[in-house]
């Protein structure tokens, strides 16, 4: 699986992911859930994160401890510039580290590396190197 001038291959089994604690969560489906208020809070956190890469810890905790559905997650996050860096894990929103250089360059490098190998002999097929933003299509041309 790997070529190296002087070493033997090593295989590690990954560990099972841990899950978040749901004991003190607020359920998005619960009677007390206030969607407009939560959306406003999410927007506030997103904008703070987008602009400064930092989020006030109390706001982060509130957003990330709220149990939401996939539908609501998509409603909140789709078409945001940094949507790729927001994940839903077991019903909880997770803000990952926003991209910083050379994130996009590495993505472009890997895309080119893979694309040239899985694309067959079509020399006209190339990839857009911009793949750092979920809202911008990146296609073969």
């Amino acid at each position, binding site marked *: *699986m*790997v*070529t*190296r001038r002087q070493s033997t*291959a*090593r*295989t*590690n*089994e*990954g*560990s*099972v*992911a841990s899950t978040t604690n749901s004991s003190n969560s607020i359920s998005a489906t619960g009677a007390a859930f206030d969607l407009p208020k939560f959306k406003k809070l999410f927007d506030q956190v997103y904008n703070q994160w987008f602009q400064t890469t930092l989020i006030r810890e109390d706001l982060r905790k509130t957003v990330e401890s709220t149990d939401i*559905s*996939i539908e609501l*997650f*998509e409603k909140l996050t789709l078409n945001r510039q940094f*949507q*790729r*860096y*927001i*994940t*839903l*894990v*077991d*019903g909880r929103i997770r803000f*990952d*580290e926003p*991209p*910083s*250089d*050379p*994130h996009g*360059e*590495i*993505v*472009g*490098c*890997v*895309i080119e*590396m*893979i694309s040239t*190998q*899985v*694309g*067959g*002999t*079509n020399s006209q*097929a190339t*990839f*857009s190197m911009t*793949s*750092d933003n*979920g*809202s*911008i*299509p*990146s*296609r*073969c041309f």
Partner: protein
Amino acid sequence: MVRFLQDVSNNVDCKLNNRSIKRPDASYTIKPPHIPNRRPGWMKLKPNGIVYPNIVVEIAVNNQSPTKLLNDCERYFSRNTSIRVWIGITYWRAGRKFWVGWAERRRGGVGATMHTEMDWPPGHCSIDEQTDIIYSIPMATIFGPNITIPPNISQNLLIDTDEIRLEILNYV
């Protein structure tokens, strides 16, 4: 010739289970014309009717926890997806170190079997030293059972870690 795999970076959502969504940095999905009329049982559909990607790529730069990267890798290989291969790269700017690995679905069908020649952070490789590591991922692993690999595609996907290292060096 139509490309066999398409980049679906604009179609980023990977529903991992009923309560989890992850958006990879890049992903490769088999185009419909190359899927047999009778779709192989292992190949699963996303809610939008498109099959799950065969390859997902995840890049982490700077402080993102390596544990998080590994846990996310595990999640990609949930029983609800048909992702075949995960390629992960992490780069730590302050330490000028990087790590590259890949994973495939476990034989049991759920979870990841990781392949790496590099120590896991913080002991990962310096970007200033040549690694001489080229991962070779079998195309049969990538395409999956009952999918014909076009004859013009090589048998293995090569991931040259030095090429990635040099790319990083260009920008730091």
